[in-house]
Each structure stands twice: as C-alpha cells, then as structure tokens.
C-alpha cells in the first residue's frame, strides 16, 4: 500500500472525514477503518494525521462530539456533523469536483 503523502492528504482528509461522519455518529477508530474499507485499502490513514484532524474539525465547529457507551460497555467519543459542517462538506465537494474536472481536461488536451 503506497503511503500517500500527508500534505496532499491533509486537505482532502478533512473532506473525507466529514463525508464519513455525515453518514452518522461515529468514533475515531471506526472512521479510520471506514476510510480504509471504502477506499479499498488505498488510503491507509496514518493515525498521526487522524486525531489532530478530528480535533481541528471539532475546534472549527464542523464536528460535534459526544461521549457514548459502545456495545462493549466502554465509553468512546462519537463525532457527528453539525450544520456548519454539512455546509462545509458541500462546499469542499463542489470545489473538489471542479478541480478534478479541470485536471482531467488538462490531461486530455495535453495528450
């Protein structure tokens, strides 16, 4: 599995986290597992990037956190998307799509 460069990942990592959390309240470990699963193992998020990113997103009020009991009885911190976060996600997705369209265009014409 290639180790994706963290700089590239940082910007998009936020977006990916927001997307995953949008599907429902979820804790940190599950987020990292989910990213790995959904991307078909392409992105193996360095744990070092994940928690700082989660706390950063929480700082900016895009994620809200709550301590709930898991099925094993242990307490864990569950994140959910706030309204601001939802708006941010939409904005970032739109930007991403525009970027990827533009890149695709350039690549095609450069051939």
């Amino acid at each position, binding site marked *: 599995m290639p180790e994706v460069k963290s700089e590239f990942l940082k910007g998009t990592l936020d977006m990916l986290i927001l997307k995953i959390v949008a599907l429902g309240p979820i804790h940190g470990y599950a987020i990292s597992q989910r990213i790995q699963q959904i991307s078909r193992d392409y992105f193996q998020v360095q*744990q070092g990037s994940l*928690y700082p990113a*989660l706390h950063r997103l929480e*700082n900016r009020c895009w994620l809200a956190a709550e301590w709930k009991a898991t099925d094993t009885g*242990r307490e*864990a911190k569950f994140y959910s998307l706030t309204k601001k976060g939802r708006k941010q996600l939409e904005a970032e997705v739109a930007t991403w799509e525009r970027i990827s369209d533009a890149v695709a265009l350039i690549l095609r014409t450069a051939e």
Partner: protein
Amino acid sequence: MRWLFRLFRKRKLDAQLDSELRFHVEQQTADNIAAGIPPAEARRRALAQFGGLESRKEEAREARGTQFLESLFQDMRYGMRMLLKNRGVTLLAVCALALGIGANAAIFSVADALLLRPEPFPNLGRLALMYNKVGTLTDENSLLAPDYEAIRTQSRSFEQVAASTGVDANLAGQGEPERVQAAKVTPNFFNVLGVQPAFGRGFTAEEGTPGHDAEVILSYGLWQSKFAGDAVIIGKQTHINGRSYTVVGVMGKDFEYPMATDLWEPLAFTAKDLTDREDNYLFPVGLLKRGVSVGQAAAELRGIGSELAKEYPKSNANVSIRVVPFRTYATDEITHNFMLLLLAAVAFVLLIACANVANLQLARVAGREREIAVRAAMGATRRRVMRQLLTESVILALAGAAFGLLLAGWAVNLLVSYIPPQISQYVAGWNRIALDWRALVYTVAIAVLAGILAGLAPAVGSSKPDITGMLKDGGRSGGGRRSHRLRSVLVVAEVAVSLVLLVGAGLMVKGFLALLDAQEKFSPQSLLTMNIALPKDKYDEQAKRAQFYQQALTNMNAIPGVESASVATAVPNSDLQSYHPYTGEGVPFTENAGHVALAESISPNYFRTLRLPLLRGREFSDADGPNSQRVAIISRSMAARYWPGESAIGKRIKHGEPNSKTPWLTIVGIVGDVKYNAYFPVDAAVYVPYAQSADMNAEFLLRTKGDPLSFVPSVRAKVANGDPEQPIYEAKTLAQLTREELIGISFIATMMAALGLIALVLASSGVYGVMAQAVTERTHEIGVRLALGAEPAQVLRWIAGRGICLAGIGLGIGLAIAFVLARLLASLVYGVSATDPLIFVVVPALLAIVALAACYIPARRAMRVDPMVALRYE
C-alpha cells in the same frame, strides 16, 4: 470563547484525549485478536501501527490551539523553580532591576505630570494661547483690548475666544486684609477651557458688562485658607479692592490657570476700553475649531495682525500676533529639556541594570548547560528553549518592578517635597506628580522590555547547545567562547555608560554650584530686596516716579542699620528682568540675541550697594538729572561686543532698533558683568539713572547690618510715608532669591547626582560579579598554575588583569562619549561648561578606583585557592 474553556479545563480534556486514543488502540488490538493474532502480539502491532501514544497525544493537543498559552505557563513555573533554586543570584538581579525600574517609574511620574498633562483640561489639545511679539524681543506680551476684539470677531479658526489678565487685589473682610492674585476673565473663559467650578457656577454673559461684574469665583486653595472651607460660601459677600463682590463659585482643587490665581472676576469692557490703544494687558486663549491646526490659526492671526499694523501704525507697527499650543504655557523649553535629560539619564541607568542582569543570567545559564542539552536531546526546539530563558528573565524583571514600584513611591514623595510649595505653585502640574495607573502601565511595559533585553543575551547564546559534548560525562560547564565575549562586552558597556552619567552629573552639580557662587561676591545674605509696582494712574509721569523713588530712598537710607538703599529695575535672579535690543552708534545692528541687553533703571548708589566695582569712567550722580545730557553705563561684555578693542566711554547707544526714535545715550561708565539670569546666557546690561528714565516696576536693594529681614517693617513704613497706598511685595534676601531662582537647576543636578550614584553602584557590582564568576570558572586553571609553581601575586595579576583591561576600555569609550555629550549638556544648561578639566579627570579616576577594587577583591580569593582542591574541581 470555547477556546477559553479549553484552556481552563486542560486536565479534563487531557484525560478525555487519553481515553479516546486508548480506545482506538484497544479496538485495533481486539480486531487483531479476532484476526487470529495472539493477544500480546496483537497489542504490540496495534501500538506500533498507532505510533507513539505520547507523540500522538502531543499532536492532538497542538490541534487544540491552546498550546502556546499552556507551554507559557509551563515555562513560567519552570522559570520560577530555577530562580528560587539559586536565590542569591536571583536576589542580586532583582535588586539591580528594582533600582533601574524604580528610578524610571519615579522620573516618569514627574515627566508625565509636568510634560504630558500639566493642566487637567479636557480640551487641552485644542486650546491655543495668543500673545504679541514686538519686533525682535523675546518677551510674550499681552494684547490690546481692541485687538482682542478684532480677533474675536474676525477669526474663523476658533470656536470661541476668551481672555484673562492678572491683577493684584486686596482681599478684606475675612480677618487680616491680604494681598491676593486675581485674574479678570471674560465670561466665556471657563467654557473655553472646558472646566466647570466644583461648586456654584461660572460667569454669565451679563456679568461681563460694566456695572454687573461684582461677582467672584474663588480658587479651592483660597476657599480653604481664607474662608475656612465654608460650606455655604456661595452667595456670600466679600470685599475686594474696596468693592463688595458676591461669591458665585469655587473652582476644583486642580484648577490653576492662570498660574497661582486665587480668585477670578469677570472682565467687563467699557466702550472706552475697547478703543484704548495704549494699554495692553490681555492674554487670550482660544478653542480651535475641530480640524483646525495651530499652524492654520497662526497664519490667520498673522494676517489679522498685519492688517491692524497697517490700520494703527502707532500702536501696532512692529507687533505680530503669535499663536502657540496651550501646552507651551505650562512647560517652557527649559523644563522640557530638563525632563528629557532626566529621562535619558534614567534610561541609561536601566540599561546598566539590564547589562548586570544579563551577565548574571549568562553566568547562571552557563551552569545549566547540561540541563539544556538534555532538553534539546529530548526534542525541545531552539525556540522553545529560548522562550523559556526569556520567560525567566521577564519574571525577574517583573519581580524587580514590584520592588521598584515600592522604591519609586518613596522616591516620588521625596522628590515632591524638594521644591517648597510657594515655588512649586508656579510649576504647572507639580502637585499632580503621583504614582498613578499611568506610571503603573509604564512600569510593567519597561519591565517586560527590560526582561527581554536582559534575557536576550543568555537566550540566544545558549539555545544552541553542543548536545553530544554536554551529554558526555565530564562535559565542561562554564560557557563557551561566545558567552565569555558577550560578558566582556557587557562589562565594557556598563562601565562606559556609567562614566557618561557620572560625568554628566558632575558637570551639572559643578555648574549649579558655580551659579550659586557667582552671587557670593555680592554677599547676598546681607542684601534685602523687595518689589514695588507703581499704579499707572498715579505715576504716569516720569517726574512723579522719579520723585517717589527719591523720597523712598532718602527715607530708607535714614534707617539706622541700613548701609545703603538703592533701586533698580531688576536685581540678579529676579523675575522682573526684561531684555531689549540696543543700537550702538556706528555699530551694525544684527537681529539676534547678540544685540539684546538687560535694561536697568537705577539709583546712583546701586553699584555701591551691590558691591559691583566700576571698571572705567564714572558712576551716576545727582548731576545726571532730567535736564542734563542723557547718560548710560554699560556692562563689560556689552562694551566688548559693540566696541571691541577700544574704550566705549563717550560712545552712544540708544534703546531699540536702528530706526527707533529713542534718544541717544552717552556712555559714561563701564561696570563688571553680573550673572543676572541663570537660564538666559546674556550678561550684557545697560543702566540708566532713574532721574532720567524711571520704571513703573522696580526693586529696592538695601545693604543692611544684621539680618535684612528684620528691616522689612521699617522699610515698609518709610515707603508708606512717601505714599500710604503703596505696598511692597516679596521682601527677601538676595540669597533667598537666588536659591529660589536656581531651585530648578538644583533639582535636576541633585537628580543627576542620585542617578550617577545608582549607576556607579550597579556598574561596580556588575564588574565584581563578572570577576567573581571568572574566578570560579578558572579555579581549575588557577590550581594548575599554582601547582606548577606560579607565585600567588602573579596569579592575582593575571586574573585581575583581564578585568582591569575591560574596565579600562570601558573608561576610554565612556570618556569619548562623555566629551560629545557634555557639549550637548552645556547648550542645555547655562553655566555648565563642556570641558571642565576637574570633572573630566576626577570622575574617571573615581570610577577607575572603584572598578579596580571590584576586580581586586574577588581576585584575591583566587590567590587563596588550595591547589589540591582546585585541581579536583571541575
């Protein structure tokens, strides 16, 4: 906001973070076990995958955003622990800083009160004063009433214009009749200043009209002293100058404009007043419109002034109207310069204190190199280490500031009592000197600055440690090359700066003593002086005035015990001096201070009374009367200036500029120079006999046997004989007058001397500290030398030699700078010479001796070192 919460709930948040990350690892472990990996291995893999738990936590914490403040608190706690561990050094540093910062706080409160807010008017920024400038005279003259009216009606720059004039008043009906200082002001006066009486009210417009102006507003001081702080004073009657006035208001405690005024009356112009072009007596003050600058107003008023000059050439020909910001009233250039001098001096003292502390810190940090290396090895960034060291210094500085404020409080009390109230009432803002919140803010600010400055050297010097070298066992402590060089530079700087300060202080003290001394040749303790002001209406003619003086002097000379009684316009160090231009016949006239001289109208025995010898020609006699040739006697420097190399006897001069119509005076005598004024360096004087030209304001000078003050009642009686309504004021000995006049300079000189002393103490302790440190560091080396057979005396010379060398360099640099700055000082203060050999030799010698002692004493310890002990010392 949430950010703030996060700061305070640090522990809880940390626990949560810990729990969250642990949960992650546990889940990963569980998954690994589920995938078939044995438990121990599962956990190890999970941890490895996660990366170091602590560093993950650190990263997450950083994302929280409160990192900076938390680490700052951590630095502070650590710094305090370090400081307390080494109490001796910390105490020294705190003392040095307390002295430096405290001195600054004290001087700041003086400068603040005198320079920044001399008068507590809300409109201060927009207030402007107007005065007349006549020809090339430097005096600020009052305006004619019609001119004031013209300004008031024509000027567009001001929202409102008011005016005041000072008069003396006899206050009767409250116990003893008393002479008080009164001011007649236009009704809008208080509105323009933006000040309201503390009780009662200001004047109404109606009260500014003749016949309705029998109201008075008292000053707070007068209300307390003369009216016993009567709570129902408003509406009561009082008698001023024989007329009955109603008290309508009392001003607040701080209000004193014009200075030292006891009561205010309304100024009521009659129609005749407004066309009177003979008497000028008004000092207008204007409230500028918003957005109009003083410069613009000045230009406008210059225009109005020239129009008036054209229209009324007889009264206004040479007159121009000037506008200045109100501030300049309260603080003249001299006070301003003196204050700047003190501020500069005290800043130097602080720099010396900082250098001291920097050296102490360098020494202290040198002992901690190992600890810093360990921290660097554990991942502390250079910035972090620097920040920690700086934080320590700032804590030191703030502690020093706390003690410094205590010192400053005590010092300010001492300062304020230096100038007695009867003089300080004329120094604007003096009674407002206090250690208030502004001084507090200033103190904290310079403390932080000083801390950073002092901490910069050790912080920069040691934040790049030689990690491997230090961590090795036996790594040598004691500071690298850089640290040593830095310490040497600081010591040299300290010595240089303190030399400059001491030389400055020495020059000022000497200058002040010289000024005092200049009067000694007149034996001022046996001279009595007093002022007299002849009222205009009674003594409008020269003959009447001359007759009054003659009568008074004859009477006074008859008093037993009076050796001689004379009169002059102004005695040395009096306030009544006025300087005028004089034109010499056949001498080209230049419009600068070079052709200005003190104008004196005297009795023939004035020089004899003063004991000022005649150098050439003759003195005045009774033969010089109103019908004989107009004569003058001039001072030596004036003769030298106008007719260098030849005798001035027989030459002629006249009062005023070349085109003035005053009569030519023939010079019949030349006398020595007298230092009439400590602040105005012109020794030239022109004397005329009062029989030919007498002044309205004059001063009597009497030489008495015994205490001059005991003669005051009889003198008063004699004057009353001649004119029962003519009081005399301000009777004091010439010695007293001189002392009072020079009190400003003496204050500054004393301050400078005190600062110089503090600088000396700081610098010498700085040198001592560095030398002691050097001895400690070199103990090993000393042991080696002694063991190898060196004589103790040789070792002493070697150790002390370096310190002496540094001190010598410092003295040299300091001397050079002192030469340059002395020139500046001499231009600031009259009487201070820029090249006084005594000071320039004695002061460096003194400092050299002190520095020598500071090097010698610790070096002697080096001699006593037991070589065996030293060799084992690391």
